[in-house]
Every structure is written in structure tokens, then in C-alpha cells.
């Protein structure tokens, strides 16, 4: 790829070269998989549905099922209402899910199908649900689509039974891996608070191999749980891009207090998560969590000289990158290029503030950027480490930079979806990956006389 980036900086103003985002429906589909017994439905032509399933399958390495309205030219001319109604009828008759979560595509959006009305007049069996979100691909990114589907869960399903709330908490985990969701649940369990997490793809996209195939795996938030989320006292919403909107809707609709937080990646964000639970429910922080935190600090001290002061470039989804940047700064690293493909102002504002507070003034921060641009920056002034999705591997190779894979999608390595990056244990994993990447490079590059056993 090296020869594909011009040697000297050139202006790049229109379109995207080597994108750092994908389209809304993928995020909506991923969120929908976090509802138990849900079949995501793509209202558009088959290609979109096939691509989203394939992309998710490549990252999670587990089956991803979704149905499609199978648009052809006819539907595109006359509107997709008939296709959607037939689809809903067929899906319940054949695949028998508890709930169908419909998302649109750019095709049905451009045609202007009126989904609420189509769904209202569709045949839905007793006790089953159909929810929907509009996900035009020409707006936002896959994170926008994820956020939209979370909102749809709240606005269609959540209900408040009355003024008294139950002593329970909702968690909107954001577009994270099933391994992260498991870790969030573990921490909340340790704190002894009852939790409803939605969406929850643990035990959906990280299922064990049993020789039996379950079309609807055991995991996922049930419709009843999401309904009951309206009776919770409080919602922790992880990530301003993926989760804050749904928490806001839940607060307006059911009077559940929403607490906006970062994704709990890094020490401070994890502290904030745990303190929020402590403050609201008045629980004691158990010694086991204090110990985990202490281990992270201990490890940071054991390793700080490996990475302190290193220049690092980070790209990926906004909530991930915001939280990670905070942790990198805590580690003493210097994030000089920070980029997301997703549009939105919060990203640049938050990152610039963090960098400013840390006294880093020459960094480049950009929302709605692409990897062409990131590579140009790196070519202009190199970095010591690149952190991002698998698509970063081209830059890492071309510019010969150590590379840590982080976020979505990771298409060329395994086990990532099962290993958390959230919580204190996530901190350890990140420290391990970052240190190892730098040390592997040192071992590879150093002269024989500098080659050390103990590092």
C-alpha cells in the first residue's frame, strides 16, 4: 500500500479513501442481536443484509442471522410496504422469533417507506413484538445505527408501571464485544446490584461449541427485561455516541435517571462506573475490586518506562477512542493523532480538552476522517505505536509502526471478542498488548549487543 499514498501531502476534501467507519444498519443489526430471541430484519435489498452478516461474522466468528425484505426493482419502484408486511408474516411463521427488530437501508429510506405505519398494519402474532429504527446509510455511521436501535428498544418496549421504582439499574453498554458485556456484568454482580443490561450479546455471539446449533442462543436481554427497564431507578449509559441518547429517551419516557458515562475503558473511566453504582445504591466497594484496581496500578508502575512518552496514533469508534485516549494519557503516552470515522462534534471537543489538560498542544484530532488522512499524518511525522481496528494493518506495514488491534472490526486476529478491554481487567489486557507490541519491536530491531533477556 506504501506506493499508494503520495510522498508529499496532498489535499483530500471529497469522499473517503480507506474509510474508518461503516454504515448505520450494521450497528442496528449488532444491537438487535443483543435482544434475546430476536431476528434482526434488514428492510432493503439482500446485499446489505448479506454484507452486514458477513462483516459481523468475520469479527465475532459466530453465526449471525438476519432476514431481508429482498427488494428487487419492483419494490424499489412501488415502495417496500408489501415486502415488509410479507416479511414480518413469513419471519414469524418460519423462524418464530420473540421479536423482529427492523432497520432500514439507504434504499428503503430513499423510497421513503413509512415504517411505523407499515408495522402498525402488519400481522403480528399475539405476544410477539416488532420494533424499528430508521438507519439511512448516508447519515452518521454504524455507531449511529447502534444508538438508534437502543433508542428503539426503549421507545417501543420500556414501560414504567408507576411512580415507585425498583432498586435496580439499567446499563447501556455501547458497541462493545460480548466479552466486555460479560465483564461489566461481573463487576456489577460483585457490587451486588440488580442490573438489566441491553443490548447484551454475551451468550449470543460468544457461544460455546456444543454440536448443537441454536438459532436463538440463550443470551440477550429478554423483551420482558427491556420492558422492566422503565421501572429501574437509574441508567448508566456508556458512551456519548452509542448510549446517551437511549438513556435520555428512557429518562423522558419513564422517569429513569440517566447517568452519562464514558465507556469504562481505563482506570478513571472504570472508577467512574464503579463510583456511580456506589453513589446511587450506597453499596460498599468490595475488597476484590479494590485489589483488581491495585493490581492495575502496580502493573503500570512495573511497566511505565516501556511506553511513557511514546507517540501514539489512535483511531476507531468515537466512544472507544475517547475512553482509550484518557487511559493512554494516564499511562504517560502521547496521543498525537486521534481520529474517528464517525461524524459528531463531541469527539473533537472531548479529546482536545483531554489533550489540552495534559499539555499536548501539537496533536491532530479529527472526527469523520479516513485512514488516507491518518497515513498522511504518520508519513509526515512518524509515531511509535498505532492503535486501531484491523484496517490499520496497511498503515502499520507501510510505515513500519508497531500495531495494537483495538475496537471493531478485528478481522485478522482471534479471541478479541471474548477478552474484555473494559474494567480493571481490561486495563491489564491493554497494558499487556501495548507493552508487548513495543517490546516485540525492540527485540526485533535491536543490535545483538543490545539484545536483553530481562526487560
Amino acid at each position: 500500500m506504501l506506493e499508494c499514498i503520495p510522498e508529499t501531502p496532498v489535499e483530500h476534501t471529497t469522499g473517503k479513501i480507506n474509510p474508518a467507519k461503516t454504515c448505520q444498519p450494521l450497528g442496528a443489526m449488532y444491537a438487535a442481536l443483543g435482544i434475546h430471541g430476536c431476528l434482526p430484519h434488514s428492510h432493503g435489498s439482500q446485499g446489505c443484509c448479506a454484507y452486514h452478516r458477513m462483516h459481523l461474522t468475520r469479527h465475532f466468528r459466530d453465526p449471525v442471522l438476519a432476514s431481508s425484505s429482498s427488494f428487487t426493482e419492483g419494490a424499489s419502484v412501488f415502495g417496500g410496504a408489501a415486502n415488509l408486511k410479507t416479511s414480518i408474516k413469513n419471519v414469524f411463521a418460519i423462524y418464530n422469533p420473540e421479536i423482529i427488530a427492523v432497520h432500514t437501508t439507504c434504499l428503503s429510506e430513499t423510497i421513503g417507506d413509512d415504517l411505523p405505519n407499515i408495522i402498525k398494519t402488519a400481522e403480528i402474532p399475539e405476544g410477539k413484538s416488532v420494533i424499528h429504527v430508521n438507519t439511512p446509510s448516508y447519515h452518521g455511521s454504524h455507531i449511529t445505527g447502534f444508538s438508534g436501535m437502543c433508542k428503539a428498544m426503549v421507545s417501543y418496549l420500556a414501560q414504567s408501571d408507576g411512580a415507585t421504582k425498583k432498586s435496580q439499574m439499567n446499563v447501556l453498554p455501547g458497541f462493545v464485544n460480548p466479552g466486555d458485556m460479560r465483564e461489566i456484568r461481573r463487576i456489577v454482580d460483585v457490587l451486588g446490584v440488580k442490573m438489566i443490561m441491553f443490548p447484551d450479546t454475551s451468550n449470543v455471539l460468544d457461544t460455546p461449541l456444543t454440536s448443537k446449533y441454536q438459532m436463538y442462543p440463550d443470551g440477550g436481554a429478554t423483551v420482558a427485561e427491556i420492558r422492566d427497564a422503565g421501572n429501574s431507578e437509574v441508567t448508566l449509559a456508556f458512551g456519548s455516541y452509542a448510549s446517551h441518547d437511549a438513556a435520555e429517551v428512557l429518562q423522558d419516557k419513564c422517569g429513569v435517571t440517566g447517568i452519562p458515562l464514558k465507556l469504562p475503558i481505563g482506570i478513571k473511566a472504570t472508577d467512574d462506573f464503579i463510583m456511580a453504582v456506589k453513589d446511587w445504591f450506597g453499596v460498599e466497594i468490595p475488597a476484590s475490586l479494590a485489589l483488581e484496581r491495585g493490581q492495575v496500578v502496580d502493573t503500570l508502575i512495573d511497566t511505565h518506562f516501556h511506553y511513557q512518552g511514546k507517540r501514539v496514533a489512535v483511531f476507531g469508534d468515537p466512544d472507544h477512542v475517547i475512553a482509550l485516549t484518557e487511559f493512554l494519557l494516564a499511562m504517560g503516552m502521547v496521543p498525537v493523532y486521534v481520529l474517528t470515522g464517525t461524524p459528531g462534534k463531541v469527539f473533537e471537543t472531548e479529546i482536545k480538552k483531554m489533550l489540552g489538560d495534559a499539555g499536548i498542544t501539537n496533536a491532530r484530532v479529527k472526527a469523520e476522517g479516513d485512514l488516507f488522512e491518518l497515513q498522511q499524518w504518520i508519513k509526515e511525522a512518524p509515531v511509535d505505536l498505532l492503535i486501531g481496528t484491523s484496517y490499520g494493518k496497511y498503515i502499520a506495514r507501510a510505515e513500519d509502526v508497531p500495531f495494537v488491534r483495538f475496537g471493531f472490526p478485528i478481522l485478522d486476529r482471534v479471541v478479541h471478542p471474548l477478552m474484555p478491554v473494559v474494567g480493571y481487567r481490561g486495563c491489564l489486557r491493554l497494558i499487556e498488548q501495548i507493552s508487548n507490541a513495543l517490546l516485540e519491536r525492540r527485540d526485533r530491531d535491536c543490535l545483538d549487543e543490545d539484545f536483553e533477556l530481562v526487560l
Partner: protein
Amino acid sequence: MDTSSVTAEGSACISERQNSILTTGKSKSSIHCADDSLAGSVSQRACVFCGARVVLNPVTDAAHLVHGPIGCATYTWDIRGSLSSGSEMYRNSFSTDMKERDVVFGGEKKLATCIDEIMGKYNPPAIFVYSTCVSGMIGDDIIAVCKAASERHATDIIPVESSGFLSGNKVVGYRAAAIALMQLIKPREGDTVKKTWKLNFLGEYNLGGEKWVVERYLREIGIEINVAFTGDSTVAALKQAPGAYLNLVQCTGSMHWVAMSLEQEFGTPYLDVNFFGAANTAESLRKIAQFYGDAGMIRRTEALIEHEQARIQPVLQKYRKKLAGKRAAIYVGGAFKAVAIIRQLKELGMEIVLTGTQTGKKEEYDNLSTLLDPGTIIIDDANPAELEKFLLEKNVDVMAGGVKERVLAYKLGIGFVDHNHDRKDGLAGFDGAVRFAREVYVTTCTPVWSQLKATGRRG
């Protein structure tokens, strides 16, 4: 729709799909295929854009610009295992990244600007511009934009009319790509391409370097490849396509029409070949030598086959011992691939119990049935529930298919071998046959299966 037969768990079989599934030797009627998928089905099929993209993407030094919202470009960014001996241009992903305002006001201007920027940055010898659902729907005239840009830059800017909604069948996209290729290689007025003894290799995408393998064989018998469509090809090489003496056609689904067009326009005859499996490879090489009719070439071909077979057969026999009697299923994109895999698995002594494709045609399915034993299930445009049902019912040991089938097979405790267009290992030629046998063996007989606690099927 008759739902009376549907069980509570959701039956695998939709009554309207009964005609898309048949059992060889039992069903009297022929298969229904090339139908549109049912609304609401979990189909493994894709779209027109996908078809066009996989055919053209391996043109290495062209820029491939997707005119649409970002997703279409992201999902097709470097997903084929097509290798290049030169330019890596094709491994970049260019998108006009259409936004709401482009949808409302039209995207033609933005497209033109993107083309200009790409020319300014890279100056590629050609740009393929793909239309997508949205750009097609709002009526952007990509033909006009490309024509104007071609004149502005004196370069081939080729429109590919691949709006996804045109069909759920990738074959329609293959045609869109074929039309684009024909436009690219058409000599300018007054220009002629000099005829040579070389041949074109159509439907060869150089996955895992497969084109290079066949190229070596052909060179050994005394023929050069003019250009492959489109594996490891360049724009300049493709423009020399009319100069070939013969066209070989490998992937019939994507390239048959191109072969016919080349015959019509330039009088080049074509031969169907298949380099998957030792027997197919030998047969294809003989056909080519016969076509040239040169005694020396025929002699060299026989020598090559003898030498290669002597080298690989002992290895294949070793795998055959491990694999004989194992039961295999095949679910792939097109019938060409299915036939190739059936022959190879049979050479390994395996039993084929299920075969299906996403986009097979009726004649192809008829041909498939003749290769298969009675009782084999044949299925068109399968959904995962159907695949699962038959994989378990037929007690399959290993499955050949694509990305989405891989994880399904694994979950069922069934081995899997990738024969999709994004696989990374070359499976063509004599060495490819060995590699294929090894892959089948590794996944069928991995000790990991014994880790599965006795659930009846394994371990």
C-alpha cells in the same frame, strides 16, 4: 402461504421453497432456481453490486470508486484474496461517501470531484465507478459523469451499473462488470490489437496466486497467458485482450458472456476449462494442447501431466486413506465451483450428500445431478435453517462453502473448507489439489473434535 405444516420451533422448510430443494433419483420435477428470494428469508445471497465488485476488483492498477454511502465501499474493501505482482492500487477503498444532501440534491457533482481528486493524487490508468442502490435510485447519471471525466482526463473512467436493488442475484452484477470490461478493452477507432499465439484466461482471479500456478504449466507446454480476467491484471494488459488466439473460461457464471462477446467482436474462440483438482487440471491442459494442435505441445503436455501426477498422487493417496467414506456437503456461490469440488472430493473417496449454490442455473443443476449419487440433496439459495437441517440429517463430516457457512458448520461440529472467493490459499492445479486435500483432511480429522464431549455426533 400455507403455514399449517410449520412447527413451533420454526420449520426449516418453507412450503414455497419445496421446489428449490430436491433429492437426486427421487424428485421427478426439475429444480426451481434463479428465482428471487422470498421476502423475509434469511438468504445467503448478496446483490448486483457485490457481483460486479468481485469480478472487477482484481484489476490491480485501476482505482475502484464506489458511488454511494460508505457501507458499500467498506464491506468490499480488500476482501478478495486476489494477489498482485505489481500495483497495489486496487487494495485501497474509494467512496464518494454520499450524504443526505447528495441524496436530496444529487451526487453527480461530488462524484466528478472525487474522480478529479483521485486523478490528481494517483493518476491511475483507469477508474471503475460503481453505482449503488442510492445513486441508482436518485437517478445520478454516472454514464454522463464518467464520459465527461474521461474526456477531461483523457483516461478510461468506466461506469459500472451495479445498483444493488436490480437483483438479489450476483449474476446480474457479473454482467454489469462484463459490460464494463468490454468497454475498457474496446480498441479506439482506427486502432487494432495485433493477434498473437497467447491466450486469455477468463474467470481467473488469482486467489492465493492460482493464476501464477496455471501460468507455469502453460509456459512449460509452450503457451503464454496474454491476460487473465481479472486476476493480477492491469488496464494496459486488458486492452491487449483482443490479440489473443484463444480464450479460456474458468468461472462460467461470471465470464461466459465476456467469452461470447470477445468471440463476436474479435473472432476469438473459447474453451471451458477447470483447474480445480488433478483430473480437471490434466483434462484442461489436454484440451488446450489439442486446440493448438501442435505435436510438440501435446507431447510436452503429456510429459507435464505424467510428471506432476507421479509427484502428487502418492500424497493424495495418503489423504484418501484418511478421508475415504467421509460425508461431505457443498454450498457455494456458483455451479462451476460446485462441480469442481464434487470431483475432487470424489477423488478423495468421499461421499457427497448435499450440494447447493446461491446462483446456479437450471442446466447447471441438471449437470450437477448427473455427477451425484442417488439420494443426494440438491438445494438452491438455501437458508441457514435448511442447511442445518440437512447437514444434521445427512450426518455430514465436512462442508465446503463461504464465510457465513463456516461458523454454522463449526457450531454443528462439522469440519469446514473455504472455497469462497475470499479464501487465501491457492487451490488450483496439481499442487492446489494437494493443498485442498490437506485442508479437507485437517478440518475433518482435527483432534479438536475429540474435545467435544459425547453429544452423540462426535468424540
